[in-house]
């Protein structure tokens, strides 16, 4: 069993490593001290199990777990935490594997035997139950074996076609494999649905114009794209734009 250890504290990583060396049939293939490193190592080394600290600087453990799930063959995740009453309650209710630090060897071995992949919907529920931020701060796109993190505040719009969603952002364009509906729900504060297949960052809209045939279109700041507004979503869009300004 190939294992990746993710924790921002060196002594915590060291301890897990030495415990794992005593449990047979597992091999530590890497250590990461923050979320970004963890995602990089996940796509490079393809571990079977990730031991993931909940409280980390930068990308939190829960968000890392959601991005990990973008991988083609996502590893199983076991959370570790020293003390977080709310998160632990959430893990219990959602039956998500977790370990309390200092970790006991028997519990670690048991958790490894029962480690399982955690679906994004279950992670959202965990975040909600634990009273943590449910919205991601980044979107994760997969380019072959590489994971690419796109900060949500850099995104202009999401555009859906048959199979994938195109994310247009400050750094270019990427494809992601998610549903526009769940994206619209998750980022409903900052993004507005303008069409069955389009979701636009509200602060990136520079103008809403009416064409000769009575259709509305949205101009997107900076990137200069012009997007169609469907009749069904026009009213909602205008209300939000007026309400904000």
């Amino acid at each position, binding site marked *: 069993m190939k294992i990746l250890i993710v924790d*921002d*504290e060196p002594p*915590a990583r060291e*301890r897990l490593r030495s415990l794992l060396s005593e449990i047979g049939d597992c091999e530590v293939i890497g250590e990461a001290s*923050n979320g970004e490193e963890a995602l990089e190592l996940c796509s490079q080394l393809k571990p079977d199990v990730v031991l993931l600290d909940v409280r980390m600087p*930068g990308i939190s453990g829960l968000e890392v777990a959601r991005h990990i799930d973008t991988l083609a063959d996502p590893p199983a995740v076991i959370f570790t935490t020293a*003390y977080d009453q709310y998160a632990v309650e959430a893990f219990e209710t959602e039956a998500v594997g977790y370990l309390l630090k*200092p*970790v006991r060897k028997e519990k670690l071995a048991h958790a490894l035997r029962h480690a399982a992949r955690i679906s994004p919907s279950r992670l959202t529920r965990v975040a909600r139950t634990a009273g943590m*931020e449910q919205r991601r701060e980044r979107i994760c796109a997969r380019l072959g074996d590489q994971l690419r993190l796109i900060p949500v505040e850099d995104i202009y719009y999401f555009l859906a076609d048959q199979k994938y969603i195109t994310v247009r952002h400050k750094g270019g364009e990427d494809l992601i494999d998610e549903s526009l509906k769940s994206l619209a729900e998750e980022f409903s504060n900052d993004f507005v649905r303008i069409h069955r297949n389009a979701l636009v960052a509200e602060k990136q809209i520079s103008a809403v114009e009416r064409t000769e045939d009575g259709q509305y279109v949205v101009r997107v700041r900076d990137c200069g794209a012009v997007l169609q507004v469907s009749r069904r979503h026009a009213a909602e869009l205008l209300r939000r734009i007026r309400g904000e300004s």
Partner: protein
Amino acid sequence: MRMPEQRSQTPNSFLPDFCAAPAVLAVVLIVELVALMMAIARQSLHQNFWVDLAATSLFLLWIGLGCSAVLCRSRAWLARMPPGRASAVAIAMLVAVVGIVSELVYQAGRFGQFELQSAVTVFPTDHAAFLLRNMAVGFIVSALALRYFYVTAEWKRSIEMEALARIHALQARIRPHFLFNSMNTIASLTRTNPGRAEQAIEDLADLFRASLHDAHTQISLKDEIEIARTHERIEQLRLGDRLRVEWDIGKLPLRAQVPCLIVQPLLENAVYHGIEMLPAGGTIHIRGELVQDRIEIEVRNPVLAHQGYREREGNRMALENIRQRLELAWPGRAWVETTQSDGEFRAKLIFPFTESRSSVIDV
């Protein structure tokens, strides 16, 4: 989400819930006892003890249950008023109930006289005096009862508040996050570096010993700084070079007398809310100086501009605890100032310079 709901359910009324079965049963029992007491007291005036007891208890039961029903119905409404006004309104309503029941009994007596043989003795004859007498008794009894309810409710509330305050104080002293992370560090060090593990355990013991002092305990500033340094050593083991602390306290009079645990919690906060949330870590600046006859100690730390991980009330609670300690030591003459700007958090303690009485022994 769950909290406000719970809060709205907890009644802040001092009145017990008269809609509940136990309360109604208690009212019935009390009424019967009072009726019995009155019947015994008046035995010499009446020929028939049992008829008197029956009449009195019937009359009082109507009043008792009527009052319960009124209080049951109006409880939520009364709870929204200040206690003084709620009491006045409640007394007025209870007296009104007594008046109405008395009036009904009088009228019943007038019309029912011919049907009952004993009615002459059972029913009152003097209308106005009967009403007034009952309402006066009703007024005194309901005032006494409300006073009793109020005092019991206050007593219960103060016990609850005290328990809550103790829990908060305890949590402010020993933050579970720090305890378990330190334990984890020590567990790791016992394998790799037993010498350091030993030192960490000694440091942790010192820290907990200090945290067991009560809020009144005064120690020298030198010792207080030492407690903070002990805390720093433990965090350093855990966070490595992500944590840097710069001490600029050369100008502080170390013999000054201070309440215990006023600097260490600031350092703990700076690590928990600041350094730990930054991938590259940062530097905590602790600066102290003597300005005229006041000591000022400032703790500065970098913080994340926007925090994704919602922080709980820990920071505010620790600061509140320090404020209480300062207030106990120097009422009105010591305070904590906090400012947050440009990704930096500052907390500043300002308190009078008091010489240590035991400084001679210390040095």
